[in-house]
């Protein structure tokens, strides 16, 4: 009984994980990168981020935006008046040999 439950849960979990990972692959195949020298700290990116990421602080401190809960929705990229932000293909999450296994 216990073993069955575990295996059922395990299967579900695996399926969930699989779906979750696929979603992440689709969404995070690109990540937001910044060129700090163009930024004038106006705050428009931060103001327009739907999940409240302080994009401007990442730009200034040079910390990657992918580390937070970025949806890669592109709102900050599109609204920055200085062309500071852009999408870059992510090597971290891009489908690679490891991801193709399960």
């Amino acid at each position: 009984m216990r073993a069955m439950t575990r295996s059922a849960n395990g299967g579900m979990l695996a399926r969930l994980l699989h779906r979750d990972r696929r979603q992440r692959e689709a969404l995070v195949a690109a990540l937001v990168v910044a060129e700090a020298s163009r930024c004038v700290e106006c705050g428009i990116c931060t103001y327009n981020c739907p999940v409240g990421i302080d994009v401007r602080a990442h730009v200034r401190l040079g910390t990657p935006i992918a580390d937070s809960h970025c949806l890669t929705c592109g709102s900050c990229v599109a609204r920055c008046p200085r062309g500071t932000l852009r999408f870059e293909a992510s090597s971290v999450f891009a489908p690679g040999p490891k991801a193709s296994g399960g």
Partner: protein
Amino acid sequence: MTQRYVIIGNGPAGATAAETIRRLDSAADVEIVGDEGVPFYSRPGLAYLLNGTVPEKLLFSRSDREYASLGVRRTVGRVSRIEPTHHRVVVADGRTLAYDRLLIAVGARALRPDLPGIDLDGVVTLDKLEDARRIIRLARSARQACVVGGGITALELAEGLAARRVETHYLMRGERYWASVLDPRESELVEGRLAEEDIQVHRGVEVRAVIGHRGRVAAVELQDGSILPCELLAVAVGIQPRVELAREAGLETGRGVWTDPMLQTSDPDVFAAGDVAEVLDPVTGRRVCDSLWSSANDQGRAAGASLCGAGTPYQRPAPLNVTRIGGITTTLIGSIGGGGREDDLVSLARGDSGAWRERLDAFAVVADSGADQLRLLLGTDRITGAVVMGDQTLSRPLQHLIRERVDISAVRDRLAEHPGDLGKLVDTLGPGLGAR
């Protein structure tokens, strides 16, 4: 012994210098004294506050908490005098601050033309947060506004007022917008957009006097004697580095405070950075002023290191600004000289560089596809400047090609014929350049 550093001015040059000092000297005593009673904010962001793109609280980009955690003291006060022989500055409230090393980072102020009535209530310039707040307040009740001047700030003022539903007139002395930096087609693109935003552009007109009613602006009188009613007159004819403190302290000054490549002034314990500084360009050997956020940051960093005795000569990169001019995203970089006369500015404007008026030994080629326009200044073996309007795909590659003085001789002839091919050629000029 603990070194005591005093920085006058809480703008990007001052703040970045403080950060740099702290990184190099963990024991140093660092104080920034600034005359604005608010925490650090984005000055270029004032334009976006004005046109309603961003709320005021979002402009404060470096919190007092961040200063505290760096161990940097920010105090409010207007420095009225520097006494280099006593190594101290005097604040208007009576305090005196002793320093071992001092940084002057007091920025520049907007000029007001010498016109009758220029001091009337309702004549505004845009220097600081207080000004933006006042303009927003005035715009609530103003029906008509006039804007005079040139460069980026004049348009930001016009567009901000128009966005606030004030009937806005932009009065140009010259025949086209920013003729010293933009070429005729670029000016035309911008002016076309202004018309779409319901800004009425007047060419070849000059304000002779500001007419008041009970101490407030009521109209402007033009040189042909005609009267244009307005409750608000916004002025952006240029800026002036705040050199007075340095000059009165006996330091060498010209347009700005003169510095050597270490950003040291004529007093070995006093340095200057940002809009107030007139720095030596190592490439041309000339002194130049910029009014650019990134230059202020770069100079703040360089000066901070010099203050600690760990400086290396400041390398001035080709000046760059990316901004919206009349709603069109525009990159200006390097030497681009528009060929026309500077009718609407009496000096450098905000977000501006003296270098943009230069035409080095280069010729201009243009790729024009309606709303987008690309202008390249081709030197013998490199691109010396560029203007990218609209589509910004080439903005970053050009930033690299121009700043790094990349040799383009192999593709120069093709660029001269078809500048629009640059996009196809960038990968041959530098690996990965196209992806930037």
